[in-house]
């Protein structure tokens, strides 16, 4: 019947446009092109090149910033998720909607917005000037990039946690109170442990895009500010060294895979479907 074959177009499509490209990238990463003879040779040179302190520093900076952004998002986002979850039901829908709305704005516009605020002639400096305080360079540095990350990804931390919190059975909280637990104890021993699947989801949805971004670093960090994403862009579009670029991409993929494996260990929920939708 037709249902047996209806997936065929996609099987073909995915083979050509998902599998093969990745295989190609893997292939590029383990080969080099001799600049004179044009010959293609198998080599681990690209990976070795990456272990130069210069590039390791870039990788480390990406991981560090993404990690910091994730922690800040968690610290700011968890209380926000709790406040949302405890709102009266009618207000909750509107509030959640309002929370999602900025996410629907174009990602670049939201990042650009901070350029205009933090810039030399931007509002922040203007306000400082008004208060007779020294102005500063708030743009084109690590702090700006971190701010950009937190700004862009905060809702991705709040929403999964909020969803899980709303599913916690109220009678569990009442039972804990009945047994003598005050609000702090309930939070620590009941609510937080039961919200772990949401926390894991949130961490995943913040750390992954943060560690691989290049837009935020390009716009808010300036031309000299390099994260792994910028490195890849540079290799592919500027330097034209697709081999090295591919190697970096492979390393990035491995990094992501490891993070996901680690996070999956902590994910005790039985629903392991993709929580993107």
């Amino acid at each position: 019947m037709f249902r047996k074959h209806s997936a065929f177009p996609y099987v073909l499509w995915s083979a050509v446009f998902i599998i093969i490209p990745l295989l190609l990238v893997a292939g590029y990463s383990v080969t080099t092109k001799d600049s004179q003879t044009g010959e293609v040779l198998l080599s681990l040179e690209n990976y070795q090149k990456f272990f130069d302190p210069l590039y390791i520093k870039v990788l480390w900076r990406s991981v560090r910033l993404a990690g910091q952004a994730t922690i800040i998002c968690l610290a700011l986002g968890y209380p926000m998720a709790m406040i949302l979850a405890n709102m009266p039901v009618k207000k909750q829908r509107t509030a959640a909607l309002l929370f999602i709305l900025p996410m629907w704005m174009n990602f670049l516009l939201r990042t650009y917005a901070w350029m205009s605020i933090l810039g030399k002639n931007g509002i922040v400096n203007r306000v400082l000037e008004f208060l007779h305080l020294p102005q500063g360079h708030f743009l084109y540095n690590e702090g700006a990039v971190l701010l950009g990350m937190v700004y862009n990804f905060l809702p991705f931390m709040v929403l999964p946690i909020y969803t899980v919190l709303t599913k916690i059975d109220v009678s569990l909280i009442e039972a804990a109170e009945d047994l003598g637990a005050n609000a702090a104890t309930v939070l620590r021993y009941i609510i937080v442990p039961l919200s772990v699947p949401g926390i894991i989801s949130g961490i995943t949805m913040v750390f992954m895009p943060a560690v691989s971004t290049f837009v935020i670093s390009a716009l808010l960090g300036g031309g000299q500010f390099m994260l792994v994403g910028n490195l890849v862009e540079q290799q592919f579009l500027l330097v034209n060294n697709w081999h090295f670029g591919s190697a970096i991409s492979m390393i990035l993929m491995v990094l992501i895979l490891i993070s996901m494996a680690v996070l999956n260990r902590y994910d005790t929920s039985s629903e392991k479907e993709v929580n993107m939708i």
Partner: protein
Amino acid sequence: MSRWLKRIYASVIFLFLYAPIIVLIIFSFNAGKYSGNWEGFSLKWYQALLTDRSIMKALYYTVLIAVLSSLISTVIGTLAALGIHHMKPLRKNIMLNVNNIPVLNPDIVTGVALMTLFGFFKMQFGVSTLLIAHITFNIPYVILSVLPKLKQLPADALEAAMDLGATPWYAFRKVIFPEILPGIITGALIAFTLSVDDFVISFFTTGGGVTNLSIAIFAMARRGIKPVINALSTLMFGTVLGLLLIINARSGDVTELDV
């Protein structure tokens, strides 16, 4: 926890989220260039926006690609979901994992991989490569929207229909399709949204002067502050707000789109 503390905290967070957007909107009406100097009310940036050919071109391509890719990916994706739903466990698992790759991979890896493919086969970078790329990252979301609806169908619905005299096509049309239609629509909407909003993948897979809004904005922003972007933001924000209000009014309950 004190009510006032909660209110203040929530307000601060909401302010944080909206402040940049509000700044963009307000200063789109600024005669001056920088957000530090208000030089009077002016619509000149809107004028500049509407006469900016590169932006208009980018808008054209954005909509074109979004419409085409969401249509095509919805068709392929729905067919794929139907097929995958009936696959044997091993094949099903493989297909689902492959399907997840574009979802889980960072955009930059997906973009670079496709660029590599197109480059390797010496394809011309332009509308076709851009379209292919968008279809590729859209299909998984369509599948992920339709599959759950298929799972919810009673397993023998199709057979029951045929037992009652329906041809397979009729049964599909009258029994299965109406049930999965909400999933199809959701998938199409997600695909459209992702396509309009995409930057990274498009950045690596386009060429020959073909751009989209995100790329146009990036190019401008990279060179510094450009108030035309403010005007564009305001218009886009208005559109998005309008759309969300319409959706909210129609359905009465918001589907959980963690886009």
